[in-house]
C-alpha cells in the first residue's frame, strides 16, 4: 500500500443556491499521476481551488501526509508544496520572464532544467511575457511550478489549447513524474491523454465523487459512464446518428472559394472550396496559419494576396460587418472574444443584427423577442442566469455564441475550435448543431485542435502545415493518427513519436530520455520531424 499523500473527504462548497461541490473525496499517493475527471460543472475546478486555498470549503476534511490541512491562500498552499497550473497562465504580461520568476520567488536553475525538459530550453528569460505565444506561456507556467519541487502539482486543463507537439512534451514530462515522491493531479477532457499518463482517475459528477478507476485498457468507457451517469448510452446513440447523417455534397457549387490566400508570415498559399451543405474540417498544429486564415475569412484582417469568392463573386472585407453581411459568421474558441460577458443572453443574441450602422434605428422589440427565444430554444440554453452571460457555464456560453448566428439563418459559419474546454455532453450538442446547420444548407469551416472531432462533425478535412495545405482527407480516413501524421507533414507509414512513447508506457519502462532518443525508425529523417512546428526545439 503506497503512502497516501493527500486525502480529502466530504468536501462541500455552495455558491448561493448552487452547490458546486456536495461531497467530494480524493485520495492520491506519492508517485502517481492521478486524473480528476468530470463533465463541466462537476466541481473539478472548485476542488482544485479549495486545495490551493483560493476558495474556502463549507465543510470537509483534508489531510496532507496525515496532518490536517487547510490553506487560507494560494501563497500558503504554495509554501506547503501544493501548486496548481491553470489553463490561463498566471504570468504578468508587462514583465519579462525573469521578473515574473522573481515575483513568485522561483529558483532560476531548476526552472531552466524543466524548460529544457519541456522542449523550450532556448527561451530567452528577458523576453516580455506579452510577446510570447500563449502556448509557450502555459509551458513556462508549468516549468515554474515544477521548479519549486511541489509535493502535489495540479494541472487544470492545461493541455486544452496546447498544440499537439507541446502537449506531447508536457505529457512526457508528467509521465516521468510517476514513481517520484510527488503526485500530479491531472485534469483534462481528453481521454487519450488520461490513458497515456495517468495511473488512476477520480470521477466527479454533480459535485460528488462517483468512482475511482484504475487506468487500464478499456477504462475510458468506464470513466465516460461514470462522468455522464445514465446519459452515457444516450450520447453514444446520438453520436452514431450524427455520423450517419453526413451527406456527400460533391456536386453542389462552392459557397466560399479561397484562391492562393496569403496572410502575414504564417499563411503562405491556401486554396480550397467550401460547398453549401458540407462541414469542412481544418486540422493543424498550433501556429501553422489557421488563425490568420480564419481572421481573414471573418473580416478581422486583410489578406496580403489571393482571392476570396462568395457564391462565385470576388469579395474583399474591410470589417467583420462586411463578412457578416456576406453571410459569413465567426465562432471563436475563446468565448470572451465573442460575448458581452456582463450583458444578457438577449442582448448577446441580438447584437450582430442591430449593431451595424445601417440598423442603428429602433429595435423592433417584438421581432427581437421571437428571434431570441427561437434561438435559445433551438440550442437548449439554460437561461436561469439570463441577466449576465458570464454566470452561464462555459458550454452554455458557447451555445450563446452559436445561437446568435443561428438565429439569423446562417449561410457560412467559421468555427475555430468551438468545443475548447467544454464538457462531453455539450460537445455532442455542438457537433449535432453543426451537422444540422449543414443539413439545412449552410457551409461550415471547422478548425479543431482535438483531432478526433473531425470524424465526429466533418465531411472531409484539409490539413495545413507551414502555411500551406498539405493534405485533403475524406472523412472515412480522417482518423486521429492519419490527421496527426499529416499535421506533422510526415508520410503515412512513419510512426509518430507519440506511438513510440505510448509503446514505452505500455511496456512500463519509460526510457529516461523518452522520445529524445527514440527508435531509429521514428525519426529516420530527423529533418522532417524537427522542421515541424516552430515551438518544438
Amino acid at each position, binding site marked *: 500500500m503506497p503512502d497516501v499523500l493527500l486525502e480529502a473527504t466530504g468536501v462541500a462548497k455552495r455558491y448561493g443556491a448552487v452547490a458546486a461541490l456536495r461531497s467530494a473525496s480524493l485520495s492520491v499517493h506519492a508517485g502517481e499521476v492521478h486524473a480528476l475527471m468530470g463533465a463541466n460543472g462537476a466541481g473539478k475546478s472548485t476542488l482544485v481551488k479549495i486545495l490551493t486555498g483560493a476558495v474556502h470549503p463549507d465543510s470537509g476534511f483534508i489531510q496532507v501526509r496525515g496532518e490536517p490541512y487547510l490553506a487560507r491562500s494560494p501563497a500558503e498552499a504554495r509554501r506547503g508544496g501544493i501548486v496548481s497550473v491553470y489553463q490561463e497562465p498566471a504570468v504578468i504580461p508587462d514583465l519579462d520572464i525573469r521578473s515574473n520568476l522573481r515575483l513568485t520567488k522561483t529558483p532560476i536553475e531548476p526552472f531552466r532544467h524543466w524548460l529544457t525538459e519541456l522542449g523550450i530550453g532556448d527561451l530567452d528569460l528577458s523576453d516580455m511575457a506579452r510577446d510570447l505565444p500563449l502556448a509557450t506561456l502555459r509551458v513556462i507556467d508549468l516549468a515554474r511550478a515544477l521548479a519549486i519541487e511541489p509535493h502535489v502539482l495540479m494541472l487544470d486543463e492545461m493541455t486544452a489549447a496546447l498544440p499537439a507537439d507541446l502537449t506531447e512534451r508536457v505529457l512526457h514530462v508528467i509521465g516521468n513524474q510517476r514513481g517520484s515522491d510527488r503526485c500530479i493531479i491531472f485534469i483534462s477532457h481528453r481521454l487519450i491523454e488520461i490513458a497515456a499518463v495517468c495511473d488512476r482517475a477520480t470521477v466527479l459528477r454533480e459535485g460528488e465523487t462517483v468512482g475511482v478507476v484504475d487506468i487500464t485498457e478499456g477504462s475510458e468507457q468506464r470513466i465516460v459512464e461514470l462522468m455522464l451517469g445514465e446519459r452515457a448510452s444516450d450520447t453514444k446513440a446520438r453520436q452514431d446518428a450524427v455520423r450517419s447523417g453526413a451527406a456527400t455534397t460533391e456536386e453542389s457549387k462552392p459557397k466560399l472559394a479561397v484562391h492562393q490566400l496569403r496572410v502575414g508570415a504564417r499563411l503562405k498559399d491556401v486554396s480550397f472550396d467550401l460547398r453549401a451543405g458540407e462541414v469542412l474540417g481544418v486540422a493543424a498544429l498550433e501556429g501553422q496559419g489557421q488563425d490568420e486564415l480564419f481572421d481573414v475569412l471573418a473580416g478581422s484582417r486583410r489578406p496580403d494576396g489571393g482571392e476570396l469568392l462568395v457564391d462565385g463573386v470576388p469579395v474583399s472585407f474591410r*470589417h467583420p460587418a462586411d463578412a457578416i453581411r456576406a453571410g459569413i459568421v465567426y465562432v471563436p474558441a475563446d468565448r470572451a*472574444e465573442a460575448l*458581452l*460577458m456582463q450583458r444578457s443572453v438577449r442582448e448577446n443574441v441580438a447584437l450582430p443584427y*442591430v449593431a451595424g450602422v445601417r440598423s442603428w434605428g429602433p429595435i423592433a422589440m417584438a421581432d427581437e423577442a421571437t428571434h431570441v427565444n427561437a434561438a435559445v430554444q433551438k440550442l437548449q440554453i439554460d437561461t436561469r442566469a439570463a*441577466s449576465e452571460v458570464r454566470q452561464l457555464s462555459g458550454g452554455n456560453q458557447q451555445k450563446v455564441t452559436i445561437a446568435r448566428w443561428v438565429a439569423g439563418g446562417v449561410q457560412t459559419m467559421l468555427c475555430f475550435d468551438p468545443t475548447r474546454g467544454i464538457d462531453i455532453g455539450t460537445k455532442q450538442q455542438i457537433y449535432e448543431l453543426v451537422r444540422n446547420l449543414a443539413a439545412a444548407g449552410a457551409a461550415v469551416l471547422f478548425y479543431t485542435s482535438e483531432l478526433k472531432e473531425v470524424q465526429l462533425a466533418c465531411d472531409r478535412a484539409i490539413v495545413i502545415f507551414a502555411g500551406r495545405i498539405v493534405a485533403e482527407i475524406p472523412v472515412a480516413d480522417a482518423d486521429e493518427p492519419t490527421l496527426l501524421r499529416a499535421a506533422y507533414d510526415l508520410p503515412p507509414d512513419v510512426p509518430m513519436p507519440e506511438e513510440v512513447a505510448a509503446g514505452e508506457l505500455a511496456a512500463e519502462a519509460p526510457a529516461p530520455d523518452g522520445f529524445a532518443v527514440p527508435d531509429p525508425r521514428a525519426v529516420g529523417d530527423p529533418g522532417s520531424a524537427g522542421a515541424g512546428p516552430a515551438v518544438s526545439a
Partner: protein
Amino acid sequence: MAQMRRRAQRNSWTLALLGLFVAMLAITYFIQPRYGAAQLQGLAIGALPLAMAAVAQAIVVISGGIDLSVGSMMAVTSVTAAVLMKDQPETFTIVAVIGILVLGLVLGIINGVLVVVTRVPDIVVTLAMSFVWAGAALVVLHTPGGGSAAWLRDIAKGSIGSEWIPSALVTLLIIVGVIWIPLRRSGAGLALYAVGSNRLAAFRSGVPVSRTKILAYMLGGLFSAFGGLALTATTGIGTPVPGAYTLLAVAAIVLGGVSLAGGRGGIAGPIVAVFVLALVRTDLTLLGANSNLSTVIQGAILIGVVMFGSLLTRRRART
C-alpha cells in the same frame, strides 16, 4: 408580474438609491421642518447642471471611455450662450440655444475623433482637450457675465402644475427621456454597451467600434452643452470657471451604479445619485457643518455607499 419583478431586480441599485434619497428627504424635514416646496425647487435647480454632466459622463463611460473635458465643455457652452443671448430678442436666443447644442455636438465629435484616430488613451485626449476648452471659455468671457434669455430661465426655475413639481426636474426628465430612451432601444444603444463591455467581441460581431466611440463622445458633448445651458439658465450669467463638474460627474455615475470598466449601468442611477449628493450638501449646511468639513463628509459618504453596494452584491452572489 414576474417581468416587473425582474425589471425591479435589474434596477435594484437605482431603486435603492431612490429609497436613500426619500429617506434623506425625511431626515431633512426632521432637521428643518420648514423644508418645503421652495427648497425642493432650489435643490432641483442646483442639481440640474451636474445631472446633465453626469448623463454626459455616464454615456461615455458605458461605452468604455472617460471624458475629463465635460466641465470645460460646459464652461465653453455656458459663456458662449451667455454672450450670444445678452439683451437679444427672443427669436434670436432660440437660434442661439440650438447653435449651442450643435456646438456641444461638435466639441464631442472632436473628442471622439481624436480618441479614435490618434489611439491615444481616452483619459489623455480628454484631459488635454479639457485645458483647450477651459482656455477657450476664458477667451470668450474673462469674468462671469453675459445674460440668459427669460424663457430659458423660466424652463429651469419655478414649478409646473403643483408647486411640488420643480420645472428643472421636469426639464431634465424630458430632455434625457427624449434622447436616451429611444437610443437605449436602438441598435446604436446596444452598440454603446457592446463596445464598452467587450471591444473585441463587439468588433467581431460587426459593430463599427470607431463610429460607436465617436457617437458616445458626441452625446457626451451634447449633454455637456445642456449642462452649460443649465448653468447659464440657473445663474442668469455665463460662468467661465464653473467648478469641479467633471469629477463630480464621475463621482455621481459611480454612485449611480455605472461601472468605470464600461458596459454596465444606466442613466437613471447617475441622475438619482446627483440628487442624493446635492441633498447631502443641503443637510450638512442645515446642520451648520463647516463647509470644508462637509466636503470631507461627502467624500466619505460616497466611498461608504459604493462599498456597501459592492458588499451587498458580493453577499447576494454567495447566498
